[in-house]
């Protein structure tokens, strides 16, 4: 029987996954007790995993740079390199990369999150004082009790015979907000060296990847800069106090690039931000394209905002993604899994939830950019689906005469996804006209 190696408690109390930074051993290597097997990165810290006993590394289940579930078996240490049987090897928690195969990995991660963590790895029983007292009173052996908490600690609710009403959200959810991260916003650059630049701002609960395939086409003739908003994509996670603060962050990122005469494209919240950017940097913009922009009226689908940000499983995410589009077939499981893979980080979801609560408090868009729309000097197009269920396309009717309006039939909140060719055509014509 080989010994399965997991990250155990060092994976971090509230982490669902971690990243393998480096393997220090290979299959067939002989190790002594205490030898470092691999280094993982968890909760922004690198941690070495040591061999609990001497032996031979008989199997390695996860590659360096891959993201694996917290409870995953990372490798085996056996008597020799053929010793690969171990207790629980039918359990589907072998390390597997999230990036290479998002869908099954997600399922694995979910099951892993349900499994007791620290308690299983230690002979010492980790239980809260209240749980211990209740177990003692009820004659319950804590060794037979499973911890439901992500902390791995047996709580009162886990002790049968103990009566305690459990809060509705007892499933492992975001453990509060992560600490604020510093640093500039991420801007992904691609495309041609020359040509007028294109600057793209995605919407709420989305990220810079969502511009595909629009950005690929534009990149043929232009340098394309795709921004990740704070708490989105690969940008830092930090609390956003207000819409004005968010505008400031976007403007800082834009200013840092030093772009002159950029064609700015924004979607939804990103549309509102693009408008605000145009309002304060009028001479830096060559044109403006707004997909279903926010900020032109108070109405917003508040359930969508909180629902999509919180969705902690591909299924629940898919349900909200379907609200975004008119043609429901667009949201197939592969799409949902891929979208979820980008949102697997619980901290990111928690940070987005909080950002959504701040920006869309009371299910309302409290920032008003109608006046900014009227002050616009650069050529501008608004593209909006008539079947939008997130924002109200009628808001666009407040636009002044020089803004071109395109209302697309049988299209929802994401014209660039639902009608990519038409969207690209409108943008290309606009850019050429400048």
């Amino acid at each position, binding site marked *: 029987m080989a010994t399965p190696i997991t990250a155990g408690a060092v994976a971090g109390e*509230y982490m669902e996954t971690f990243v393998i930074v480096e393997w220090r051993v290979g299959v067939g290597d002989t190790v002594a007790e205490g030898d470092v097997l691999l280094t993982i990165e968890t909760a922004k810290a690198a941690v070495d995993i040591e061999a609990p006993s001497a032996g031979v590394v008989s199997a390695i289940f996860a590659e360096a740079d891959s993201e694996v579930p917290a409870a995953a078996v990372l490798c085996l240490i056996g008597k020799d390199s053929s010793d690969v049987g171990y207790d629980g090897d039918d359990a589907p928690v072998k390390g597997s990369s999230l990036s290479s195969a998002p869908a099954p990995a997600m399922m694995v991660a979910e099951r892993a999150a349900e499994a007791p963590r620290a308690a299983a790895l230690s002979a010492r029983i980790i239980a*809260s*004082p*209240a*749980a*211990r*007292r209740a177990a003692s009173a009820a004659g319950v052996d804590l060794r037979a009790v499973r911890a439901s*908490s*992500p*902390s791995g*600690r047996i*709580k*009162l*609710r886990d002790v049968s015979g103990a009566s*305690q*009403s459990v*809060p*509705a*959200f*007892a499933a*492992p*959810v*975001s*453990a*509060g*907000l992560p600490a*604020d991260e510093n640093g500039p916003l991420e801007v992904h650059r691609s495309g041609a060296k020359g040509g007028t630049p294109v600057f793209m701002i995605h919407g709420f609960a989305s990220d810079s990847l969502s511009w595909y395939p629009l950005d690929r086409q534009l990149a043929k003739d232009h340098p394309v800069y795709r921004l990740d908003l704070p708490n989105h994509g690969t940008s830092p996670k930090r*609390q956003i*106090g207000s819409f004005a*603060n968010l505008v400031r962050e976007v403007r800082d990122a834009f200013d840092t690039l030093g772009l002159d005469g950029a064609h700015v494209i924004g979607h939804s919240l990103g549309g509102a931000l693009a408008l605000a950017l145009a309002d304060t940097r009028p001479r830096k913009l060559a044109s403006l394209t707004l997909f279903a922009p926010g900020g032109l009226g108070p109405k917003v689908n508040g359930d969508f905002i909180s629902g999509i940000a919180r969705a902690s499983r591909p299924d629940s995410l898919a349900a909200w993604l379907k609200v975004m589009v008119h043609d429901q077939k667009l949201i197939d499981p592969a799409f949902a899994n891929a979208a979820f893979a980008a949102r697997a980080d619980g901290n990111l979801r*928690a940070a987005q939830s*909080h950002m959504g*609560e701040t920006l869309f408090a009371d299910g309302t868009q409290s920032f008003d950019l109608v006046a900014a729309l009227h002050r616009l000097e650069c050529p501008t197009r608004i593209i909006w689906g008539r079947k939008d269920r997130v924002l109200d396309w009628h808001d666009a009717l407040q636009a002044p005469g020089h803004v071109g309006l395109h209302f697309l039939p049988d299209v929802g909140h994401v014209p660039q996804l639902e009608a990519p060719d038409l969207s690209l055509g409108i943008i290309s014509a606009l850019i050429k006209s400048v």
Partner: protein
Amino acid sequence: MTVMRYAEALNAALREEMQRDPSVFLFGEDIGRYGGVFKVSKGLRDEFGDARVRDTPISEQALTAMAVTAAMSGTRPVLEIMYADFLPLSLDALVNQASVFTYLWEGQVDIPFVLRTQGGGGVGTGAQHAKSLDAMVCHIPGIKVVAPATPADAKGLLKSAIRDRQPVVFLEHKLLYNTRGEVPDGDDVLVPIGKAKTVVEGKHVSIFASSKMVIEAENAAKLLAKDGVEAEVIDLRTLRPLDLDAIRRSIAKTNHAVVVNEGWTFCGYASELSATIMEHCFDDLDAPVARVAMPDMAIPYSEPLEMAVLPNAVKIAAAAKKALA
């Protein structure tokens, strides 16, 4: 009941106690002609005269020391220290005089003075005018410390503080002065020192707070309610002597505790609450006590920076969720 602002409630308490007892007098910087920078003593100089509502030089050290001995010798001084950040200047009088002689000269003299001050951040007053130094004064034996959150408690506790035989540090919050609330009518409606109040009933997690943090805790309870969590919010009202019974009762019911204080975290008031709960409620705990307090650093000026360090409803709710998970 009369609806009044927190500052007005304090003003009413001062007026009523000065009318009731001629040995009560007020002194402090800018409190007389100007009525106090937060207008708590507005109009009192006109009613009671310069001698009993006295503008002072900027001399916090001596003023506090004088409050101690004036109290020993027949009067009931109410000293206003403009900002809690200046409390370090008052410390010798509190630590080496008031505290010491409360014990050493017990039975010979009472020391009935009130030191009123206000602290707290949120309005860009910067690192020297926004602190909450609750822990610093709560460390001192023989000194009572109260920190009311509502106009009714502000009035009732200030009246109790003025009538108390011991020194009372009365902590106000600059963001509470304009809050409104119902205040019971009547000159003799007192709020007892040393009694906490349950402001939100709940059964899943207890949140202990004082002063403005009570409002944040109440908002946290609303956030938590969306997730089906019924949080109980206890307004401590008195920080020293602490109402241990109220803490015990609540934790026996919820098994989870979040302790909140706007002051620094390390060696802070929240730390003391946490230690108290560990000692007295250990077997009732189903999760470690969660502290929500100011990071251990000076308070920055710029709005996003200041907001980042201040404890708030979101941080409290997050701590509660973590405890409950």
